[in-house]
């Protein structure tokens, strides 16, 4: 590869902008797969984390989920899910579905651990005060616990979002397109401008996701807490993630 010129030539070639391997199509595959997986991951992990964090019951489940999440790598989830999805759905088991299931599995642990840790860090006095004011448990959760824990919860969502966008790349290994397709095709046929072009887009999308969710996380700090809040994940989350 002669360098940047070839990569620019790759980006501007007409076949990158129309047809069944076009950038807009691959980008759409990447974004829609990531968004669907993250939404499903949040739908599973958030209620679980809120329940365990609010009641304090099932802390072992959190540790188990965190440890499984740590030990099974992204490609591992795809390797586990893919043969099953092909066995169950034949050709329909290629592409979207195996990666979707793998991405949901990947996105759950950070959201569960952070939601749990965020709620546990809420000052018990505040809970008591809420109860003393006559709040029902659901009100306490909605009006006291979640607003205080929101930045920590969103830090978990952010970590999951970045992992999901990064790992959606692997969908191309099982026929699912995404921007990873350029990297995988390019490595296969030794077309380096295609490899680099794909990699640049994947990296840009991941960094945009990181910054976008970072901004959301900072904006989520409740007004009353803005001065003393920190956007760092709490020490407890780090410790439990370390399995210690």
């Amino acid at each position, binding site marked *: *590869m002669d360098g940047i010129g070839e990569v620019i030539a790759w980006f501007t070639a007409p076949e990158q902008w129309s047809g069944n391997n076009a950038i807009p199509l691959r980008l759409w595959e990447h974004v829609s797969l990531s968004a669907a997986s993250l939404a499903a991951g949040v739908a599973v992990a958030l209620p679980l984390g809120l329940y365990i964090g609010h009641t304090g019951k099932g802390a072992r489940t959190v540790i188990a989920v965190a440890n499984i999440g*740590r*030990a*099974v*790598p*992204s*490609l*591992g989830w*795809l*390797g*586990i899910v*893919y*043969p099953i999805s*092909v*066995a169950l759905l034949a050709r329909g088991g290629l592409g979207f579905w195996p990666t979707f299931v793998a991405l949901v599995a990947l996105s759950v642990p950070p959201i569960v651990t952070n939601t749990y840790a965020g709620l546990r860090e809420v000052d018990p006095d505040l809970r008591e005060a809420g109860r003393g004011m006559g709040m029902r448990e659901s009100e306490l959760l909605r009006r006291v616990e979640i607003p205080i824990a929101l930045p920590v919860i969103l830090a978990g969502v952010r970590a999951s979002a*970045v992992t999901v*966008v*990064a*790992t959606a*790349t*692997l969908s191309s*290994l*099982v026929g699912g397109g995404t921007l*990873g397709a350029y*990297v*995988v095709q*390019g*490595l296969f046929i030794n077309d*380096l401008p295609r*490899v*680099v072009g*794909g*990699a*640049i887009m*994947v*990296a840009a999308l*991941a*960094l945009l996701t*990181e910054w976008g969710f970072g901004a959301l996380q900072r904006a989520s700090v409740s007004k009353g807490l803005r001065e003393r809040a920190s956007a760092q994940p709490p020490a407890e989350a*780090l*410790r439990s*993630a*370390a*399995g*210690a």
Partner: protein
Amino acid sequence: MNEGQPFIRWDWIIDNLDQIGRRLGEHVYMTLLAISIGFAISFALAMLIRSRPGLYGPIIGFSGILYAIPSVALFALLVPFTGLSVLSAEIALVSYTLVILIRNIVTGLEGVPPDVIEAAVGMGYTPSQRLWRVELPIALPVIVAGLRIATVTTIGLVTITTLIGAGGLGYLIVNTGIRRFFDTSTYTGVVLSVALAIAADLLLLALQRRLTPWARARAEA
């Protein structure tokens, strides 16, 4: 799964034990190399931060950006420079360890109680004696916690390096597994990489307990 084929073909595993062992060996080697180099660089940078705390923000910020770049992308971006090789794999793998290790070394050293440092000063320890005999031993559990996260993460990332021809257990998952619809190979690779991650984690935990016997004594007291 191919029709009429058992889900796991044990005969294939037995016939290919040497190949499986070689892939496992490559995986362990790439992990150890990345963690050793990553730790050496992180330790040096943490020492630099210790003498110039203002550098913490820029160093963590930069290594944080490296960490946020997806592994497939970083491996791929290195290929034009260092080729389809273990070298490309290692450069990316080392980059990913930095943010975890630097943060834990710095946090561990900052967690040393000031009165302990004062006592060491009072006993006439030089700054370097203080570091090696007092501060680092006290910071060890936090440093090892970082090593555990970095090691488990690296073992997962090494599976991806097969895409740039670096071998490892990812070869069993992708090249002889997913690409050939041969589930036995896929699952062999997945199970071994997960087992390796758990084993490495427990080994580091055992090492930490061994190196900090006083922590256990205090917990029991």
